[in-house]
């Protein structure tokens, strides 16, 4: 949705409230609920989605009055930012922009950012757009390399085959308006959990030899990385393979790329990549690639606890993952993707990844 449409939508919300006032009714805003009981896992699309429940937020209600006011403040400020074509801001900056002392009192409009953040999410779901469309950013961490040419909002042309040792930084907003993909010539997207592993592959020009994009979110991915992978997967119909540590945290990161997280159900619809496949590292690889004992890390109580929890997640409700989680539990050890260097420094690029990809040794 472009800025103009969003502005119109915001205006109509304002007009609705004025209408309520004209009827001398207690005015309210209607907001899709983001609470856990309005979140469900949609098996068909493989995505975590928001349900249809809505909540009403009234002005003349002691516990809702302040939030009602705050919602109007956020919505009107966003409208103003878009109309004035201001630069994109972080939600912390938005908070400072909105925070002030209410005239005739000692009370602030907002006391901490904890008060603006959920209201920004409310506005997102009210408008059914991502905050990136509202030009609000989160700090991205990721880098990528591969045969991709992009025209940036600034007009710069970015060629991701020529980004040197560092790779190309992922910008905070990857919507088409900001990050217009002009050319893309790859067969698949390889998402790598850790920077160090990505770095070795980049130095070995893995992306060139294997005609792919290599992306890392440096651990738990930020919004921009997830949204970009979603766009590559669906707008350019590319397969996505995710390569993480063999541990509950790595598997969880895969699930974040794939289905999103419960807390951001609304965002997941637009940034999850259900078609992503899990490449590894997985328990079957331990024998297959004869990993040395010294690469095993004993699991701790917290790991076992995590596995137990994850076994219950809706999106791990399939034979393959239940088996994998059980196997990990039984094996009792974790293995990091970095540990593949103990075979040899070239092992990941020359043996492990090609074997896995050629033979489609994936988990769903």
């Amino acid at each position, binding site marked *: 949705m472009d800025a103009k449409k969003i502005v119109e939508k*915001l*205006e109509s*919300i*304002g*007009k609705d*409230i*004025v209408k309520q*006032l*004209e009827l*001398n009714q*207690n*005015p309210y805003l209607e907001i899709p609920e983001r609470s856990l009981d309005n979140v469900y896992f949609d098996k068909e699309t493989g995505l975590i989605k928001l349900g249809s429940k809505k909540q009403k937020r009234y*002005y*003349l209600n*002691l*516990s809702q*009055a*302040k939030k*009602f*006011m705050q919602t*109007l*403040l956020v*919505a*009107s*400020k966003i*409208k*103003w930012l878009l109309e004035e074509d201001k630069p994109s801001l972080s939600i912390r900056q938005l908070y400072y922009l909105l925070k002030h002392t*209410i*005239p*005739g*009192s000692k*009370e602030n*409009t907002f006391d901490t950012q904890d008060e603006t953040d959920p209201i920004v999410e409310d506005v997102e779901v009210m408008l059914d757009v991502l905050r990136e469309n509202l030009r609000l950013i989160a700090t991205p961490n990721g880098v990528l390399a591969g045969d991709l040419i992009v025209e940036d909002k600034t007009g710069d042309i970015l060629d991701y085959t020529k980004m040197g040792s560092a790779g190309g930084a992922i910008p905070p907003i990857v919507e088409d308006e900001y990050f217009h993909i002009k050319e893309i010539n790859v067969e698949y997207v390889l998402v790598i959990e850790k920077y160090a592993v990505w770095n070795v592959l980049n130095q070995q020009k893995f992306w060139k030899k294997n005609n792919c994009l290599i992306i890392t979110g440096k651990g738990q991915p930020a919004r921009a990385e997830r949204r970009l992978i979603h766009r590559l997967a669906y707008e350019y119909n590319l397969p996505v393979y995710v390569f993480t540590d063999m541990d509950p945290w790595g598997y969880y990161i895969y699930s974040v790329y794939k289905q999103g997280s419960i807390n951001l159900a609304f965002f997941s619809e637009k940034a999850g990549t259900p078609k992503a496949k899990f490449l590894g590292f997985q328990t079957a690889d331990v024998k297959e690639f004869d990993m040395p004992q010294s690469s095993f890390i004993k699991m701790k109580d917290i790991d076992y606890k995590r596995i137990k929890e994850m076994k219950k997640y809706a999106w791990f409700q399939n034979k393959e993952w239940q088996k994998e989680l059980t196997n990990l539990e039984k094996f009792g050890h974790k293995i990091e993707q970095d540990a593949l260097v103990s075979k040899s420094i070239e092992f990941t690029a020359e043996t492990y990844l090609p074997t896995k990809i050629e033979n489609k040794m994936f988990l769903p």
Partner: protein
Amino acid sequence: MSALDVTQKAIALSNEQREISVAEFFEKNRHLLGYNTLQKALLTVVREAVDNALDACESADILPDIYVEVQDLGEQTYKVIVEDNGPGIKKENVPYVFGKLLFGSKFMKLMQTRGQQGIGISGAVLYAQLTTGKPAKIYSKIGDGKVYVVELAIDIEKNQPDILSEDVLDGHGHGIRIELILKGKYVRGKQSILEYLKETAIMNPHAEIRLVEPDGNMIRFERAVNELPVKPKEIKPHPHGIELGVLMRMLSNSSSRTLLSFLMNEFSRVGKKSALDIIAKAGLEANAKPSSLTRLEAEKLLKAMHKALLPAPPTDCLSPVGKEAIIQGLKKELLPEFTAAVSRKPKVYRGFPFLVEVGLAYGGNIKQENAKLYRYANKVPLLYEQGACALTKAFLEVDWRRYGLKKASNGFPEAPLIVSVHFASVWVPYTSESKEAISSYDDIIKEVKLALQDAARELQKYLSKLHKASYSKERKSKFERYAVEIVEALSILSNESKEKIQDLMTRLLKTHIKDYKEEIEKLQDKDYLSAVKQNDTPLSNQEDSNDHHSTQASGQKKDDFEEEIDALIEDVKKRKELNLLDYAK
């Protein structure tokens, strides 16, 4: 060693054996009576005398006036004077009451009194004598216009009074005055005489108590209730609480001619039907002579007695302080903003009736951060061994968070709260002879917890109401305050003029918001609030208050009231932050 040697040895050793006097025993084991340290010893002496004085007054239906004086004689030596307006003791008995251990009227009686053991006051005399060698001086007036004055010591090896001088003078009124000189240490604060008397005054609001401290400072605890508490009656033992040894003794000593009359006369709650039933179940004859029963028959009788369905023992042997008096006591000494009291019905443990009472005072002049617990056994404050006491255990077992209070690091609620727990019984199971802690029997803990929970529920209701009332005031100003921001934001959002939106908002507020004062009315029936309204002593007496309200004209009453309410709400808010969980949730 040859057999003969052993025999001689045995005889020699046996010849050394002799009877030991109980005074000798306690001379060597004075810590059992509460004379462990100088500080505690001085307190124990005052306690024994004051407890006796209160008991004496009550047993003769006299409202107690008690005078306590402690003089510092230097070198850790103190003179203690305790005087009461009780009935006095007849001349012949005075030496025994004060000069012989294990002498008293209350020992075997099943009736709630403060002292029980017949050791208390004579133990104090013994301690004074051991530490300073000085005799006790006693004045006794029984209202016959005379004063009997005696100086006495205890002959320890014989456990008998040793009268050093005696005289009979003229004198009005009645009562006892005792003077003792002993080693001790006078302190203030925790576990002090002052604290003991203050706590006594709280649970005995019918008593007037004066204390003259060593520096000449006089403290007066005024009488707040002009009626004596219900007088305890002596009761007979209850069949459920009897043991075989005692039963056999009662059987052989009985003057009853038949087993039937024995059961009906010497036990409480046994009517003819129950008695016949017991005898039948025991397979005995109703007209058997009690003293003729064999041990086996006595055992059968006991079993039948224990199994018999009988009413609980009579409870008039107990003297509860009562809800009203508990509240009066708390109010007069503490000036709290809220009080609650619970007086539980008597229960039975080991055949002995007991009852639990709880008083609770919150806020107002009580300012300390964490709750305090005042423990009482038969109206006597317990100052030592708080940790070992069943009352403390029960207090800590209550989940105070359920009643809206936070828990402090010591496990006590974090609140300006004083809780008094009174355990009354004909038989108090102290953990030791120093009478400082009650043994943790499950039945007792359970009963105390129930009483505390009842009182806590009252407190919770109060706090919750107070909290809600403070909301009303906030409402209106909150809506008005936010209107300014909403007008601005809504104008940008809707592209409508600020003026238009402002007018619509003003109309909305006017028609939709009730006046908060209506809701505040709800609180007015509460004691504390009406005190505020009338500018009553409890509030104007508050520490550091400049009391400027009371000087304003009465025409301004309403404004005063509003100001008070504001202050109250402010106070509640602050306290909420500090002490209370959020009720709103």
